[in-house]
């Protein structure tokens, strides 16, 4: 295991652990306001300080991690759930009308500026975490469809697939029993990358007020709230941003590390 995989996995584990822990315990109450103790810099009572309502920032970060992870995870789930079967189907009938429709549809989604459409969807259907998930998830579908199709196409030319066809298995069975397991590594790596992009997208959407709604804490909205306080108390802006950076960095490192670990041949090609 490489250093980047270890470091990435450790960073990710810290945030996932904090999010899980927040279900049971947080250092402070994320909804309890304490105006007298607002905008406190990090100190003994509040390890990461307090925000403009006097809420404990560490506690808000922990609960906010829950929102970020949930949104990004479900969005990856949507992308894989729809994209992988589409990619498998397209590869199984390469050049057919289904392949053509799926690939053209993919091109079309890629042509839309994802952020604009995410904003459009959340604005039209109302800002909420669920709509943010859908908006981010839709753009994950073509990513997984294309990746799966590409990987599956090269697998279909292999001898063991020919053997399966000779044995009389249907295209669907071959796709599920032989193609899918062999693309799993690629999908895991891409899933990690899309996960980190999802975290960034969720932060962006909730920063402009289109993600999770108050009182649910979210990292993006903590930054939006902090914007006017930045001169008075820089820590309210710096700390949530650092959390996003570390989480995304952790996921990216883990993705890179996983790719090298799962497919050592790639590493030789790349370096």
């Amino acid at each position, binding site marked *: 295991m490489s250093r980047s995989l270890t470091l990435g996995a450790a960073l990710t584990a810290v945030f996932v652990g904090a999010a899980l822990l927040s279900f049971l315990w947080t250092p402070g109450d994320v909804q309890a306001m304490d105006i007298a103790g607002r905008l406190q810099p990090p100190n003994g009572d509040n390890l990461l300080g307090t925000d403009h309502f006097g809420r404990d920032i560490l506690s808000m970060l922990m609960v906010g991690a829950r929102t970020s992870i949930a949104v990004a995870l479900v969005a990856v789930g949507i992308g894989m759930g729809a994209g992988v079967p589409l990619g498998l189907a397209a590869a199984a009938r390469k050049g057919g009308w289904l392949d053509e429709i799926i690939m053209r549809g993919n091109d*079309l989604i890629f042509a839309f500026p994802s952020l604009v459409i995410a904003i459009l969807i959340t604005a039209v259907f109302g800002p909420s975490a669920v709509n943010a998930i859908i908006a981010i998830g839709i753009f994950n579908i073509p990513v997984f469809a294309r990746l799966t199709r590409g990987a599956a196409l090269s697998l279909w030319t292999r001898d063991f697939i020919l053997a399966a066809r000779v044995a009389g298995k249907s295209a669907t069975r071959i796709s599920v029993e032989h193609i899918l397991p062999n693309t799993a590594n690629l999908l895991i790596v891409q899933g990690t990358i899309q996960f980190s992009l999802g975290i960034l997208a969720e932060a962006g959407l909730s920063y402009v007020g289109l993600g999770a709604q108050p009182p649910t804490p979210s990292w993006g909205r903590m930054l939006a709230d902090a*914007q006017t306080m930045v001169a008075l108390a820089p820590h309210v802006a710096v700390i949530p*941003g650092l959390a*996003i950076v570390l989480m995304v960095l952790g996921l990216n490192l883990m993705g890179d590390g996983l790719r090298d670990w799962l497919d050592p041949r790639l590493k030789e090609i790349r370096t």
Partner: protein
Amino acid sequence: MLRYTLKRLTSLVVSLLVASLVIFLVVEVAPGDPASYMLGINAQPETVAALRAELGLDVPKYQRYLAWVGGMLTGDFGTSYTYRTPVAQMIADRLWVSLPLALMALTLSTCIAFPAGIYAAARRGQAGDVAVMGATQLGVAVPNFWFAMLLVLLFAINLGWFSAGGFPGWDNPLQALKSLTLPAIALALPQAAILTRVMRSSLLDILGEDFMRTARAKGLSRRQALWRHALRNALIPVLTIIGLQFSFLLAGAIIIEQVFFLPGLGRLIFQSITQRDLIVVESVVMLLVFAVIVVNFIVDLAYAAVDPRLRQRV
């Protein structure tokens, strides 16, 4: 080449048509009637109906779609429900902020990424390479709006070199450029990180090619071989990414414009969404999609012109 161009052109037109249909449908299912929104909750039903007729909202949806698309073809984007001014004019005004911002960011990101990518590729595996790659890892992980806030904190609040937001207009070009500088840096940083990685890996691919060994065997120094042979060949993937980044920057400026209170296309979208000014929303989104699709089309054609092999793969 002609056949290829025609084929790509057909797919361009189909993409644009489908895109316009999708945008129209999404916006049209939006809850909230523009007319009743504009008149408030106490409006008489007759007044609302009269305004609906005036805005052209009482005709069937498919007719409105055809009118919208037909209008755009002739440069007429319709009239804003809220401001009663031509949408084309509103968009043009905002483009004067968004377009220079995107161009500045693109220039910056290219100016950072080229030297950084070449430097890292030339020193593969050495300390310099590791440092550059580490920096790009950080660059792609930083949300640009947060980076923007840090820039404001440092350069506007603490040092006082720039204003924290707003746009003075192009009457004073120097002032205008100055107010776009911090937003452009914030937009450019993550893009520069991506472009640096592309530049590096593309160069590394080329450096492993046989013709590079031939160049060295001919007696060229490493440096000469890099500049004369490798760089030119490595540029193709880099140019694609630059093409993609331009349209991304135009659309991606939305959030940065919020941070710096810039009156660009992004602010226009947000404003019109909250005011239910559907026709403006539709037109701005369509314009952005149009930009993406056309830039991709141009990049594809440019490739095929340079590299005949690509014409086979349609």
